């Protein structure tokens, strides 16, 4: 095969610092090459350099790129521009910011086509090609009317408008839910096969690479440390860094130790409900309710971890905040050790948040941040010891948050929560903003703290693959309700609810087994207008007439395993 794209010895520098160093690889037509690496390793800059779209501060130091026999860095900008629409196209991570909010989807696609060959009117056809249902109507809609997955499809349609022979996809599914990710990846693979495109896929997710790529390149600190065939790579990576990546996958972490003795009920949540009023008009009348959390009942036992799993917008965060009384619940009871939570001091339950950059006040020193809870609760404590407990140095207390990395900040946030000696820690996606290797460290830390302090965790996550390695019990949430719950083995290995099964199947695994996964179509509906009957029925592959009529009652399969599905009633 002659190479369509040939990158030789590419180096990019930003302000004297080499961020891409001597990267060389080739890509043949119809082939998929995955560029793997953790955040900041230079994978996006490599892609931007190929498109000659580098930010002004970055400079190509040396190297050359040949596309279809033409030297890209030697082309004049005008030639390059026509090549960008036609020969090579790019899609980005954040579909929301890559579309123009004031133009309809159809107009935006037509614009690209017009730039290319002066013809119009193929927008609808392209939208159909990327699997957008009701393409005729969607073409006339604005980006804000589309869900995240649909926006990404529209972006792909736009990229296809120029009939590119090389598609560069920079983390195309990172901002999407697993079920949507599965749909988009499937679409990309299908399009590639039909059009014979070459695909340069940039990702940090080993599972995505395993599922999509023919060949894999691993980037680390600006260098391409390993390039190999996908099968061979996943059988046994050669480079030490690649091996480290594998080792930190949640799949390869040890399972949590089973807590001995009788599992004593500790936190009890009864019918927790949070409805947000939707207000409209001049008088701000309430015209509806967003049922963010709609009657959730949970139990967490002392020293154990309960994971709440669900897709974006299903109400996980809202549930966590309502348990903590940060949001006043519309209805329901929360009690800890038999006492109502609103009578307890706030120190019993604490929270660790998702965004390590938004959870620390940038104007305060680490010491002040950690002391905040202690001062508010009037307790004494040793800040240095707390910092050491989460694996940081005691003398970091006098520094400011901006001096720390994401993982370190998350450790600080954990130390802050531990400062008031809570008994339950609510962790809201504490690792989803972190790289896999850092994620593994934080999970290990959380587990270590649990063993030492007997903490109970409520672990909120959208990533069902970390659950196995952290949780004892799992609750799966869909549109404000728990659809299935039980212990880890029952839910992850004996999933009965079609939604849980779909979630599990959608996770790209590194053994590549999810190729024939069960795809659930469509997007999660809005909690403001939940579908009648079983909320999952518009997407459920096993839907029956009964499902449209009424919400299924609870089915108890074992002492711990319960679910809501008409299949089992």
């Amino acid at each position, binding site marked *: 095969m002659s190479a369509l794209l040939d990158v030789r010895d590419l180096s990019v520098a930003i302000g004297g610092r080499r961020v891409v160093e001597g990267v060389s690889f080739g890509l043949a037509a119809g082939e998929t090459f995955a560029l793997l690496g953790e955040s900041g390793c230079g994978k996006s800059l490599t892609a931007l350099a190929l498109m000659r779209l580098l930010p002004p501060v970055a400079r190509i130091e040396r190297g050359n790129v040949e596309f279809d026999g033409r030297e890209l860095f030697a082309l004049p900008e005008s030639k390059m521009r026509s090549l960008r629409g036609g020969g090579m196209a790019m899609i980005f991570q954040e579909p929301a910011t890559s579309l123009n909010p004031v133009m309809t989807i159809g107009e935006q696609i037509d614009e690209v086509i017009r730039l290319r060959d002066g013809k119009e009117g193929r927008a609808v056809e392209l939208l159909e090609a990327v699997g957008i249902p009701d393409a005729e109507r969607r073409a006339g809609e604005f980006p804000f009317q589309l869900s995240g997955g649909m926006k990404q499809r529209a972006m792909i349609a736009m990229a296809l408008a120029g009939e590119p022979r090389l598609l560069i996809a920079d983390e195309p599914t990172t901002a999407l839910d697993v079920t949507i990710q599965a749909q988009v990846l499937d679409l990309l693979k299908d399009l590639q096969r039909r059009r014979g495109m070459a695909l340069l896929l940039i990702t940090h997710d080993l599972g995505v690479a395993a599922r999509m790529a023919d060949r894999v390149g691993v980037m680390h600190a600006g260098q391409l440390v390993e390039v190999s065939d996908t099968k061979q790579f996943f059988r046994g990576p050669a480079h030490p860094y690649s091996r480290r990546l594998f080792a930190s996958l949640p799949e390869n972490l040890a399972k949590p130790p089973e807590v001995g003795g009788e599992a004593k009920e500790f936190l009890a949540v009864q019918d927790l409900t949070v409805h947000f009023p939707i207000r409209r008009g001049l008088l701000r009348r309430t015209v509806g309710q967003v049922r963010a959390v709609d009657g959730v009942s949970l139990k967490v036992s002392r020293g154990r971890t309960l994971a709440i799993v669900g897709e974006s917008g299903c109400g996980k965060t809202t549930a966590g905040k309502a348990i903590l009384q*940060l949001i006043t619940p519309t209805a329901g009871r929360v009690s800890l050790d038999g006492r109502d939570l609103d009578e307890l001091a706030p120190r019993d339950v604490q929270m660790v948040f998702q965004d390590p950059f938004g*959870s620390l006040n*940038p104007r*305060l020193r680490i010491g002040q941040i950690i002391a*905040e809870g202690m001062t*508010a609760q009037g307790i004494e404590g040793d800040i240095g010891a707390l910092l050491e407990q989460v694996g940081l140095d005691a003398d970091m207390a006098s520094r400011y948050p901006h001096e720390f990395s994401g993982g370190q900040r998350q450790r600080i946030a954990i130390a802050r929560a531990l400062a008031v000696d809570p008994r339950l820690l609510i962790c809201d996606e504490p690792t989803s903003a972190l790289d896999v290797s850092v994620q593994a460290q934080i999970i290990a830390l959380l587990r270590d703290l649990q063993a030492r302090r007997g903490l109970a965790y409520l672990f909120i996550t959208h990533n069902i693959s970390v659950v196995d390695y952290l949780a004892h019990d799992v609750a799966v949430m869909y549109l404000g309700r728990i659809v299935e719950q039980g212990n880890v083995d029952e839910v992850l290995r004996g999933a009965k609810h079609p939604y849980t099964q779909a979630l599990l199947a959608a996770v790209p695994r590194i053994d590549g087994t999810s190729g024939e996964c069960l795809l659930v179509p469509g997007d999660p509906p809005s909690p403001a207008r939940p579908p009648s009957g079983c909320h999952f029925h518009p997407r459920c592959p096993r839907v029956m007439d009964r499902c449209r009529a009424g919400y299924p009652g609870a089915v108890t399969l074992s002492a711990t395993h319960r679910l809501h599905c008409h299949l089992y009633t």
Partner: protein
Amino acid sequence: MMPVILWSDALFFLLIAVTLGGAGWARRHEHLRASWAMVWASRRARAAAAVLAVFFAIGFVDSLHYRPQLPVEAGKPPAYSVEVLSALDALLTPLRTHTEKTYSAPLATHSFAKETQEAGGRDFPPLKYPGTHLFGTDKVGQDVLYLTLKSIRTGLLIGTLTTLIMLPAAVLLGIVAGYVGGWVDDVIQYLYTTLNSIPGVLLIAAAVLMMQVVIDTHPDWFATAAERADARLLALCAILGITSWTGLCRLLRGETLKLREMEYVQAARAFGVGPLAIMLRHILPNLMHIVLIALVMDFSGLVLAEAVLSYVGIGVDPNTISFGTMINAARLELAREPMVWWSLAAAFVFMFALVLAANLFADAVRDAFDPRAA
């Protein structure tokens, strides 16, 4: 000599004290020190700051007021003149006292208008102080350079005191509206939307005229003409402040809404930290850059506003020397044949220098403090 402290002097000194205190505070905070270091790193900002410093020095010297002692008559207690002078007046005594009869062009040796001479016939009479008036003299023979230098204080006061007056209201109401929400937010929003929908000039004109009536009906409140003019200047600052806090308030409310949802604020709430402490510890320090940027950006706008308002007659007291009153006077001078252009030119050059320096400095401050600009 009897020192006199006018209200505006006191506020101006307070402002300078606050600025110095703030500088000391900023030195102890790393992120502020870093941002200021970024400001000083720009050569343009340093030059602008130097120009501003000169203006502020002039304004400061012009704020040290006193009443000179009249010649002592034997056996009587010392008496003081009703005229209030400043240290600047004392420094510029030659300029202040070397008045001519009427207009004279810059550095002229002879008057601008012909006069009937004792010897018969009409001719340009020689000046008393030929060649010393750098910017010429005005209608009553006052040195224009002196007038422009005196104008500086007025401009600075308007530019700084106005923000000082409106700042507490804007910051307090903005943060409270954003953080507390609910009906408090509704009331505050209603307030500033209403204020905003009345044309500012109308509001200012009405308020200034009312103020004038109050001042005129209570002549006993003021010992000297300077105090009366000062009261009107302060009133103008207050009115400008009242009409201009809304923009900053709205900005701060929006930013507070965003900060309120930040996870560190949520974490503090989870610890049971009270709302007041959250606003002081977590919200206010993260808004300071907006306040600072608004402060320096508004300054030049207010200096210009003074000129415009005084030009249409609803600004400072007509006896107060200011850029606005100078420009107002120039309206008639420009209509003369031949034209008298130098008052306007002098006012323009000084005001331009002040506003340009302020704007350049404001730009540098914004670049250094605005996280989005980085």
